[in-house]
């Protein structure tokens, strides 16, 4: 059964447009121009227990708003959400006992005091027994190397260190669902890897359901089997990563370099319109094609046999490119 059920959820905000300039400022004192913004518009999806789902979208697409509704902070303007058997905003008190949350942009720990004090406070808030507490800390320490950080005030930690502590804090009370809002934002490669390893292990070993938003698509590629794409409040895609590739990866490209500069007659290769050739400069040429129609091996063979080439490189569309494409189009084109 689905652990999280989101059906037809919308969130509308009212904002006020401000007029510019001094006279505009004075006008603003007396009259405001309300404008309705739909941050999330008619979004539905479900998440099963134990899943790790990636939720992606450009800045302002509605990711964080969705997460905030899922965690019970914001009340949906319409539609309904059920998670772990509760309506998040209504049953906030009971519901939040079973979830963990990390907002990558700000810490959940107490800024001025040692990390361990924050953990102690969380232990008391969630009623974690001494034994479980020690045990959890051991598990986290093994992956996140927490012990050296425990007695430092949060404000003196580096971003990577802080995020390790924040993650540990979110999992401390063994939540069933964890929401991670951009957990790897601003981190270096090593720190990112560290955190991904941790999430993988926790998800596998403790069966925690994880919903994470990110800008870094390599997070998704490494962690999630399933991905949701949201843009301008609309859910554009819901499915597996392979599905996303299959659906959008129409174009691959081969770049090849000639032995000697010269003009190439592409007609000789005999692919007609199925491959789009282009001479980039005197030496380099490009062939763009659809993998479903043309086998790349065939194309490479033909190029190598008919032309004097020095080098051939094959580029597959990355998830990143697919997503960039989706963002710029703002819609899913059925394939």
């Amino acid at each position, binding site marked *: 059964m689905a652990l999280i059920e989101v059906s037809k959820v919308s969130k509308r905000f009212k904002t006020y447009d401000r007029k510019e300039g001094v006279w505009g400022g004075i006008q603003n004192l007396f009259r405001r121009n309300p404008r309705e913004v739909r941050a999330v518009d008619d979004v539905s999806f479900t998440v099963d227990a134990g899943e790790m789902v990636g939720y992606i979208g450009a800045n302002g697409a509605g990711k964080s708003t969705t997460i905030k509704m899922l*965690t019970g902070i914001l*009340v949906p303007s319409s539609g309904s959400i059920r998670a772990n058997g509760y309506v998040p905003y209504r049953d906030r008190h009971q519901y*939040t006992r079973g979830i963990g949350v990390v907002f990558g942009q700000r810490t959940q720990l107490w800024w001025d005091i040692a990390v361990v004090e924050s953990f102690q406070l969380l232990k008391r808030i969630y009623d974690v027994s001494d034994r479980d507490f020690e045990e959890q800390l051991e598990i986290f320490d093994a992956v996140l190397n927490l012990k050296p950080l425990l007695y430092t005030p949060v404000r003196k930690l580096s971003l990577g260190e802080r995020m390790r502590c924040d993650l540990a804090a979110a999992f401390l009370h063994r939540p069933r669902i964890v929401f991670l809002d951009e957990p790897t934002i601003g981190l270096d490669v090593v720190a990112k890897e560290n955190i991904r390893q941790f999430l993988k292990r926790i998800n596998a070993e403790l069966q925690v359901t994880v919903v994470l938003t990110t800008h870094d698509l390599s997070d998704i590629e490494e962690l999630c089997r399933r991905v949701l794409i949201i843009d301008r409040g609309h859910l554009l895609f819901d499915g597996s990563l392979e599905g996303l590739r299959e659906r959008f990866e129409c174009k691959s490209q081969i770049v090849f370099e000639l032995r000697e500069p010269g003009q190439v007659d592409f007609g000789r290769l005999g692919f007609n319109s199925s491959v789009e050739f282009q001479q980039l400069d005197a030496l380099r040429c490009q062939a763009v094609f659809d993998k479903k129609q043309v086998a790349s091996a065939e194309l490479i063979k033909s190029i190598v046999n008919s032309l004097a080439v020095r080098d051939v490189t094959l580029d597959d569309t990355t998830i990143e490119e697919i997503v960039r494409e989706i963002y710029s189009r703002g819609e899913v084109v059925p394939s």
Partner: protein
Amino acid sequence: MNVTPYIAFARIAFLKILAYRLRYYTGIVTYMVNVSVYYFIWKALYRGKESLGEFTFEEMITYVSVGFIIRTFYFNNIDREIANDILLGHIAAKMTRPVNYQWMNIAQAAGESFFRLFMFTVPTALAILVVFPLRAPASPYSALAFLAALLFSFMVFAALNFLVGTCAVYLHSILGLIRAKYFLVEILSGLLIPISFFPDALAEISRWLPFQLISFTPLMIYMGKFQGEQLVTSFLLGLGWTLVLVGLGHWFWRKAATKLTVQGG
């Protein structure tokens, strides 16, 4: 309600104050300066007079000094903290904890007050005692009643601040409101001038408002001017207003929480 987490919040607040030493030392000096200023103002006002209203000069100095001394105990910044939570978006993380936001804030304020009682109130009292001639509580009985009244002054102050802070959900920037409340409380609580010095109409109204419970009531009890029936009335008033203001805060926050928008990110 399980109280353990709230005790933990109080403890954290205690630790937080300890993190900043300078703020602690400057705090004591500030209160010394405050009392000194009022000492000289009243000295000027009493020149050539035995007493003003029901207060002798010595009583007035005691009133003002003890007023500032207990202010080190009951004072808190709940309103400012809520405004910050909302303005900077920290509210998001706090809402994802299974705790009551109002009691979390009050518990943190209590932790701070407990800290201040030992590290602030007592040293400030000693420092002021060395310089200015203060009277002792009127009787051991008044002293006890005074300590009990301080609980109400803390609760009323905290509950009021929570109400003001919650307005930030609707107004976003409430610095002006906070300032206005600050001055209103300083006057109406009787911190600056005893309420009995107010014009009759205002004094009569103030007698039923919650503000006097913060400063005037405990001070009058300390000086033995509230006794017997008047003492009972002020305790009932304290209890009543505490319940009303906390209840109002609870209701207001529940309403406001559904209107919450989170700034940034």
